[in-house]
């Protein structure tokens, strides 16, 4: 079977597998959405009322296999039912609201981490063993080993609470109305600084070290030496001869870290009260909002798959050896 077809096939099957896992997990969790919904109510619900509620909120009832069929249908129609926690919003509405924020947060910080990490990695490798390398590389490692939670908390305390330089919560100033006004965009950017930077911070190290080691490998390659012999500028050799080749493994690493960026963004979102998928998932878990949890995992898996697909494509683009038709 052709590689591309196999790859696409894989994505489809992976998605289905993820869908099955998503189906099972919340169902295995203790507690029932209605209990959570009405935990604050004074009395136990009469069974009829309970059944009525289950039905009105569209929670699956009946034997597992019927639930599964209903679930499958909902996956493909993207009708994931109501969120318990955010009723009357549907799961797709909640996710639709949260998704852009996470894409923005995780995406910006992944790109930031990737570019900063890769560029510093390139420089460290270029003067390998030099002062910059000896300081930056171990430092990068050190940073990488600090949990996102710690970084986020520290940033929150220093820049938000102590120095009051940056907003400490929200995706934008709540007094503003969302829109394309410069004021609003400015506010979004301003509010994003801390979450984006603190999330990127922990991932820079990984890219730096990967890039540095790949670069060091590349720098010994003949084509790089030839680049130098050809009398090209250091810059050109560094970026077009060494880095472009060294980038390939980093790109795979990029795909793999999308997951950890998403994981990290969960914590960051919780700490900074950022309205993305991560915080929503956290809330959904605490509230046992099954439909929402399911939708979340589905979307996150989909995001991972998309990222992987993108990386597959980027790979073909970056490495002409793979491009032969």
């Amino acid at each position, binding site marked *: 079977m052709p590689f591309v077809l196999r790859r696409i096939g894989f994505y489809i099957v992976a998605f289905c597998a993820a869908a099955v896992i998503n189906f099972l997990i919340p169902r295995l969790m*203790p*507690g*029932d959405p209605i*209990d*959570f*919904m*009405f*935990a*604050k*109510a*004074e*009395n*136990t*619900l*009469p069974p*009829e*009322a*309970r059944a*009525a*509620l289950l039905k*009105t*909120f569209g929670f699956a009832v009946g034997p597992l296999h019927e639930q599964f069929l209903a679930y499958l249908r909902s996956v493909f129609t993207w009708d994931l039912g*109501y969120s*318990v*926690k*955010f*009723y*009357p*919003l549907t799961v797709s509405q909640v996710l639709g*609201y949260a998704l852009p924020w996470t894409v923005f947060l995780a995406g910006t910080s992944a790109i930031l981490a990737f570019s900063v990490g890769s560029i510093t990695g390139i420089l460290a490798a270029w003067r390998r063993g030099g002062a910059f390398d000896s300081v930056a590389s171990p430092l990068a490692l050190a940073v990488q080993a600090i949990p996102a939670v710690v970084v986020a908390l520290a940033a*929150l305390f220093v820049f*938000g*609470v102590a120095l009051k330089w940056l907003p*400490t*919560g*929200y*995706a*934008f100033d*709540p*007094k503003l*109305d*969302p829109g394309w006004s410069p004021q609003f965009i400015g506010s979004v950017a301003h509010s994003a600084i801390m979450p984006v930077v603190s999330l990127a911070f922990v991932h820079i190290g990984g890219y730096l070290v990967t890039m540095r080691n790949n670069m060091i490998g590349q720098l010994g390659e003949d084509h790089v030496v030839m680049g130098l012999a050809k009398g090209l500028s250091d810059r050109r050799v560094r970026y077009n001869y060494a880095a472009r080749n060294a980038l390939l493994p980093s790109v795979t690493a990029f795909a793999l870290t999308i997951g950890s960026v998403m994981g990290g963004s969960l914590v960051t979102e919780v*700490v900074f*009260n950022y*309205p993305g998928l991560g*915080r*929503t998932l956290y*809330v959904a878990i*605490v*509230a*046992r909002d099954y439909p929402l949890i399911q939708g979340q995992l589905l979307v996150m898996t989909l995001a991972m798959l998309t990222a992987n697909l993108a990386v597959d494509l980027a790979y073909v683009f970056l490495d002409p050896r793979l491009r032969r038709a």
Partner: protein
Amino acid sequence: KAILTAFPTETTAFVANFNPFNTSTRLSTVEDFMYEPLVIFNVLQGGKPEYRLAESFTYNDDLTAVTFKIRDGVKWSDGQPFTANDVLFTFNLLKAHPELDLNAIWTQIKSVEVDGNNVTIAYNAANSGLIYKLVQVYVVPEHTWKDVADPATFTNEKPVGSGPMTEIERFTPQEYMQCRNPNYWDAANLFVDCLRFPQIAGNDQTLTEVTKGELDWFGAFLPDIEKTYVGLDPDHNAYWFPGGSMVVFNLNQQTKNAGNKAAFNDLNFRRAFSMAMDRQAMVDIAGYGYPTLNEYPSGLGAAFHSWNNAKVDTEYGQFSKYNLDAAKQLLADSGYKDVTGDGFVENPDGSKIGFDIIVPNGWTDWVNSVQLAVEGLTQVGIEARLSTPEEGPWDNMLKSGDFDVGINSIRGGVTPHFMFDLALYSANVGKTRQAASHYSNPELDKLLDGFYQTSDEAEQRKIMDQIQEIVGRDLPYVAVFNNPLWYEYSTKRFTGWFNAENPVARPVVYGGVPERVLHLLALRPVTP
């Protein structure tokens, strides 16, 4: 415009749900502010009725029916008149949709009838306390609700209300603004034009919001409040934490674990348990000193001290005070011994005692209280562990009886009867989380029944004395402290706040306390 910024409860995102019958996700400002109650019973004033949409209420002679007279000239926010028919409609709505009737009103009433301005509600049995539940039914306008197909899932996006604040002027998940009702009947007393509600998700965020100085009225737990809040602006920032619901440990007398059941059904074990509770530490350490100590054997609580039966204190008071030695002694005297040598006692018959104390995950002050309880219990030789299910399962376990020991709170009412009834009335077992001790005592049931069958205060006091006697003696739950009512305010932009010097009514801004309408009406903007 006088805009007051308030923060009633933590949320992760606001969702536009203005259906007062949906307890799960309706906004906390729908009750009272958008839909005003007929009558507000001012708990701090011994349950004095403040007539709102109703002008008065009267009982029939044998206390089996109550008649509300609806106030003249009240209008819905869209200008339509508010009538007795709206009340009738609402009650009928609950009857037709039991899932909306969360207080199970219709299990206790027979009928609702309208006669001109009067609405008469007939009870199944004599009851002078049911009215407190009846006024918690928020009346909705018939003209907009009659066509609602499914009132349980209805979100009431264009709310038409009767309260002071009905107009939603701005709505985002991060903030919304609820503004004055153009047709408010009591507009003469309303000086606040809009309420602004920012979304705040947790303690840390509350603290950072607080430092911005934008919050005027809120009810939040703030650690070290003197420093973290008052200290920020000592001239304006202030707080007042009157005692609220009673916090108890429920020893489930019908637990499925035989060894634990034997122990929990032994009064001496319960007394030893109670003496192992370092209540002061729970208040001071777990609660930052905000809760009110509760060493009443019956758990009556300082707020109801006027009802106190002093005899109960002298007779049983020792069992409600922290005393590890006495607890150990009592256990030893009652035959509890450590036969297995694990450092923990077993039942006199040798069966094992060992239990989890369940507390909702993340309710830190309670979690810490339970940890203190475990510390005390461990020291007297009782094996106890902390367990933190999520709120939902915790609630479910307390209701269903599938647990050993849990920490729990019992809502206070206008009179102490309300909480004793909730927690100990045998018919409530299995129905409400508050009856989690799964205790049943026919003698007590009779007294509880009798309390509201009379409206004679002397008679009621006598009954209450007896109730306290039984509860204090029997120790069906172990009361430890009363939760504070959370209330912080700033006088920078508004004055007229309730506080210890001006204790007009319960001052909180969060739901479940209808007196907040009275508080809102008492506020005046500071004119610069």
